[in-house]
């Protein structure tokens, strides 16, 4: 479990990016951290990973303090940054130098994941394209079988088929013990994958809800006439009519559109709060 309690963080003391952010992240879930560019998604991930330190407040991962970067903590968390680092090594050399640090690393799994992501490494890893390098690191990170996997914009640099393969792979490796935490500004890449949504903007936590809860509280539909007497979180005209996100008053299910949800929540944070606070 990751517990973030009253986290304040700023790159300068004058301007805090996060102020008193509290968040509890439970095992067995895939979290999607959504935010605009510069909203602080990477910063939050780095605070969890222990490569940035909170100005105030606490972050704990399985009751360990990331700031100490103890080996026992680092064996628990695998962090995949937006830009990945691969040295000029063959896959065999890379495994012999890096995999030993992860006690639960599984080489068969790695090869399986590489196959699923269609990564072939004929020579040295740094000779691969950026997307292939990223897929290799994703496969390696998953094969390390750490309890927590933090991914910062993992689909950046991946082509369209790879994004789909990525979603399938992430869904297949999920266990009850694991936490997969993915930050992205490309909401469509996470559709049908995540089961918890976190939306941050201007250092504020605007939404933290499960897909189930979102489905209960919001209704996504395309209409020709905007319904009256209903709280409309977001509307967007398209060819078929007007796509809206409104408060779900009937309890009907609808297909969640993460992009509309994100746009609605960031545009109407107060209304979001009202809708999600109502029981």
């Amino acid at each position: 479990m990751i517990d973030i309690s009253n986290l304040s963080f700023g790159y300068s003391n004058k301007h805090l990016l996060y102020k008193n952010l509290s968040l509890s992240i439970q095992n067995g879930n895939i979290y999607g951290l959504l935010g605009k560019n510069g909203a602080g998604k990477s910063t939050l991930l780095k605070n969890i990973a222990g490569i940035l330190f909170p100005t105030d407040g606490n972050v704990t991962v399985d009751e360990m303090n990331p700031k100490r970067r103890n080996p026992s903590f680092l064996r628990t968390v695998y962090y995949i940054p937006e830009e990945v680092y691969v040295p000029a090594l063959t896959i065999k050399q890379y495994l012999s130098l890096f995999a030993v640090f992860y006690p639960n690393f599984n080489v068969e799994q790695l090869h399986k994941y590489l196959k699923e992501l269609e990564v072939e490494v004929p020579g040295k890893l740094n000779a691969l394209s950026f997307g292939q390098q990223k897929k290799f690191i994703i496969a390696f990170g998953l094969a390390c079988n750490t309890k927590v996997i933090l991914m910062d914009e993992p689909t950046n640099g991946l082509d369209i088929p790879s994004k789909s393969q990525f979603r399938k792979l992430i869904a297949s490796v999920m266990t009850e013990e694991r936490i997969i935490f993915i930050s992205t500004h490309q909401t469509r890449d996470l559709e049908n994958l995540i089961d918890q949504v976190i939306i941050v903007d201007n250092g504020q936590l605007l939404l933290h809800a499960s897909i189930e809860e979102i489905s209960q509280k919001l209704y996504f539909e395309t209409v020709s006439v905007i319904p009256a007497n209903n709280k409309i979180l977001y509307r967007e005209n398209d060819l078929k009519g007007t796509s809206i996100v409104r408060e779900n008053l009937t309890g009907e299910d609808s297909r969640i559109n993460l992009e509309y949800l994100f746009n609605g929540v960031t545009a109407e944070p107060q209304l979001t709060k009202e809708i999600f606070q109502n029981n």
Partner: protein
Amino acid sequence: MNDTFNITRFGWLFRKSILERPTLILGSIAATMAITFLCYAFVQATIGVERAQVVSFMAGFFIGGSLMASSVFNYFSSNASGSSFLMLPASHFEKWLCGILTAGVLFTLIFLGFYRVIDIFFVNHYRNGLDPNSPGYQNLYHSVDVFAFDNRIAQRIYLMYVNVGATMLLGSLYFKKVSYIKVALIICTFVGCTYLLNLVFITFLFKHVDAANPFDHVFLKVGNEVGLIGLPYPLDNAFHILSLYIVPAILLLVAYLRLTEKEF
């Protein structure tokens, strides 16, 4: 596993730090060897073997060693490699020790080994070039011997190296890009300022000052006569201990603290 030090994990880390970037580590060593060899060859051909021994030892050990010291933590030149290094499951102490062993012990052993080989080669070359029938053969033969690693000059160079090496290592944890050049500039500025301040201070105390090396000797020149004022033994010894042990230890300790506090 212990969270501070585990010998197996340290072994993995040490192996990784050498083999992960063979071009950088082995390249630095190869460049050092080339500089040392060329320096030795050039100076012995122009000035003589004795000077060549000192110049090449200093150039190779000093330049190569400081280059190595600045490169052991150069993961921080990019976000990707920096976060990869910080997130690797090894303790700060192990990462720090690994850097010190690479730059301080491994490099030194390789350099001294290499230096001894080329020194023997050049000294033998010099001796073989002498005419055994010339009257001064014995004197010339014995005037050059292999460079002793425990002589006063070597000790001075070790002293300079531990200080500059430790500064380079620390600097690489502060500067993201071209840390070697930035730290070299800082060191040059510091040495230059210290020298000038020392000279100004000494000229207030003595007349006819010719040269004044900080924490060392003052040369006085009156006409053609040159006098030398040295620090009294206790002070000289204190300075020696300070510069050989205490200052490098402080620099390395600060480097360790910086590593533990490093954010990326």
